[in-house]
C-alpha cells in the first residue's frame, strides 16, 4: 500500500433519470456476470429445466402425447418443451431473485449498496435485467436442445413468435417482481432456498410443467389458475404445440387475453407488495 491517489476529475452533468438508467444498465452487466459464477444458481435455476427436458424426453421417448392433424406423433420432447420454457421463466425470475435478494439482505450486499450513491431504481433495473437476460439465454438453450437433439418442430409463423415474445417478457417481469416481493419472507439468507424452492416446486407440479395439465382434477386446475405459472405454461403451449391440442386446455381455448390479464394483475400486485416491503436494510433490527 503506497502511492498517492488522485481523484480523476470527470464532471458529468446528467439528469437523475439518465443517471439511474445508465447505472441500471451497468448493474445488469455486473449482475449477469455474478450470476454465472454462482454454481448452485447456475444448476438449480439456469440448467434445471434443461436437465428436466432431457430426462423427460429420454424417459418418455416411447410414449405418445397425441397426434397432429397431419398424423405426426407428438413426442415427449415436443410436449414438454413449452412446459420447460415456462418453468425457466418462473425460475429465472421468481426463484432466482427471491433467493438472490434474500442472500444480499443478510450478507451485507444491500447494506453496502445502501451506503453508496446507487439509486434504488438502478438496483431494480439490474435485477430485472439479470432475470431477463439469463431467462433469454436459458430459453435459447432449451429451444436449441429441443430443435437439434430432440427434433422438435419449431413454429414457422411470425405470429407465434410474437406471442412467445410477449408471454416471455410479461412472464419474466411478473416472476421477477414477485421474486423481489418474496425475498422479504426468508428470515436469513441461509433459509432462503428452503422457503423459496418448495413454492416454485409445488407451482410447477400443479401448473402443468411436470404433469400433463389436462390430467389434473378440475379443482386443482382451478387452484393453479390463480397463480401465474399455469398461464405462462398455457401461453408457451399455444406457441409450440399444434392447434389440435387446444382441446386439452381449460375451456378448450388458449385464452391469450386471459393470460395477459392474469400476468398483468400479478405484476401489479407484485409491484405494490414490493414497494411496501422492500427496504435496503432492515433498520433497527
Amino acid at each position, binding site marked *: 500500500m503506497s502511492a498517492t491517489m488522485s481523484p480523476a476529475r470527470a464532471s458529468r452533468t446528467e439528469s437523475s433519470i439518465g443517471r439511474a438508467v445508465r447505472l441500471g444498465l*451497468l448493474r445488469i452487466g455486473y449482475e449477469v456476470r455474478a450470476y454465472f459464477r454462482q454454481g448452485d444458481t447456475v444448476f438449480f435455476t439456469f440448467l434445471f429445466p434443461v436437465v428436466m427436458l432431457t430426462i423427460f424426453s429420454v424417459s418418455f421417448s416411447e410414449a405418445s402425447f397425441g397426434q397432429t392433424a397431419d398424423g405426426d406423433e407428438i413426442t415427449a420432447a415436443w410436449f414438454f418443451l413449452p412446459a420447460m420454457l415456462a418453468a425457466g421463466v418462473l425460475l429465472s425470475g421468481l426463484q432466482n431473485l427471491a433467493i438472490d435478494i434474500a442472500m444480499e439482505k443478510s450478507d451485507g450486499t444491500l447494506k453496502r449498496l445502501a451506503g453508496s450513491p*446507487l439509486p434504488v431504481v438502478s438496483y431494480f433495473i439490474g435485477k430485472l435485467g439479470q432475470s431477463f437476460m439469463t431467462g433469454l439465454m436459458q430459453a435459447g438453450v432449451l429451444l436449441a436442445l429441443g430443435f437439434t437433439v430432440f427434433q422438435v418442430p419449431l413454429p414457422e409463423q411470425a405470429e407465434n413468435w410474437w406471442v412467445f415474445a410477449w408471454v416471455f417478457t410479461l412472464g419474466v417481469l411478473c416472476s421477477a417482481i414477485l421474486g423481489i416481493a418474496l425475498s422479504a419472507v426468508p428470515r436469513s439468507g441461509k433459509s432462503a432456498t428452503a422457503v423459496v424452492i418448495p413454492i416454485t416446486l409445488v407451482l410447477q407440479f400443479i401448473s402443468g410443467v411436470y404433469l400433463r395439465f389436462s390430467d389434473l382434477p378440475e379443482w386443482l386446475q382451478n387452484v393453479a389458475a390463480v397463480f401465474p405459472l399455469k398461464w405462462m405454461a398455457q401461453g408457451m403451449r399455444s406457441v409450440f404445440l399444434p392447434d389440435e391440442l387446444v382441446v386439452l386446455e381449460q375451456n378448450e381455448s388458449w385464452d391469450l387475453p386471459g393470460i395477459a390479464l392474469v400476468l398483468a394483475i400479478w405484476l401489479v400486485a407484485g409491484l405494490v407488495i414490493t414497494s411496501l416491503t422492500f427496504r435496503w436494510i432492515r433498520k433497527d433490527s
Partner: protein
Amino acid sequence: MTTPENVVEVRELRKTYGDLTAVDGVSFDIHRGETFALLGPNGAGKSTTIEILEGYRSRSSGAVSVLGVDPQKGGLDWKARIGIVLQSSGESGNVTVAEQLRHFAALYPNPRDVDEVIAAVGLEAKAGSLIRKLSGGQRRRVDVAVGIVGAPELLFLDEPTTGFDPEARRSFWKLIRTLQSEGTSILLTTHYLDEAAQLGDRAGIIAGGRMVDLAPIDEIGGRESRVPLVRWLENGERREQRTDSPASVVTELVARIGGEPESLEVIRPSLEDVYLDLVGHEHASDLSAEALNETEAAR
C-alpha cells in the same frame, strides 16, 4: 486561531431499543481534515453511533449533522461525499477485485483511479481474482478500497483492520496517512489502541452508551493518568510509585537499596493503559479490570 469547520456534529444523541438505551446522550464534533477515533468496549454504543451517522439507523433524540446534512435525510448527492467501510462483510464475492472497484467507482461523480486504489491497498496481484477466493484480510482490504474509491470527503472506518497481519496493518496506516494528507476527514472505530494512537488526532471513549472522555489522543484520561510509574520488587514484594521524575526516584532507590533493584520497570502509560483504566472505572466491569491486570502483569 479560527474555529475549524466541522464535518460531523453530534449533540445529545440518544438511541433506545425498548427498555435498552444503546446510546445515552453522546455529543462530539469532528473537524474537517481530522481523524477522530471512537473507542470503547463491545456493546458500548460505538457501532450504533457510527451507523446513525452513516444514515443506516434512526435516532431516538438529539441532533446529528454530517457534512451539513441530517443523515436520516441524506440523499444520493450526500452519499457520494461519504465513504463507508462497514464492520463486517460476508458478500458472496462472485466478481473480481478489479470488477468490484470499477463498478463502485462508476457510482461516484469523481472517483479515484481504480488501478491506483488497488495498488494502494496492495492487491495488484489479486486484481483479477474473485473476491470469494481471497483470504479474510484480503477481503477486508477490498472493503477499504471500495470505501475510498469514491474519493470521499468523510470516511467511516468501522474496525477496518480486523484480521490484518501486523505488516498489513502497517501498510494500512500508511494508506490512511496518505488520505489524511489529502484532507480526508475520518471517523475510526477500532479495538487496537495503538492504531488509534497512530492515526487519531482526537479520541472519544464511549462506555455504557456515554462519552466518558473526549480529548486529543495524548491527553485522553487527563494528565495524572499519564504520569510514569516506577515499579520494582523489594523483599519479594511488588512496590510501585507514580512520579513525574522517575529518574530521581530510581536514583534514590538505588542509593537506598545499595544496588540494582530487582525487576525494575519505568512505565509510561500508553493509550491502552489509560483506556482500560477509564473503561474499567466507568464500566465497573470485572472483565475490563481483569484485562487491566493482565496488561500490567504482562509488563
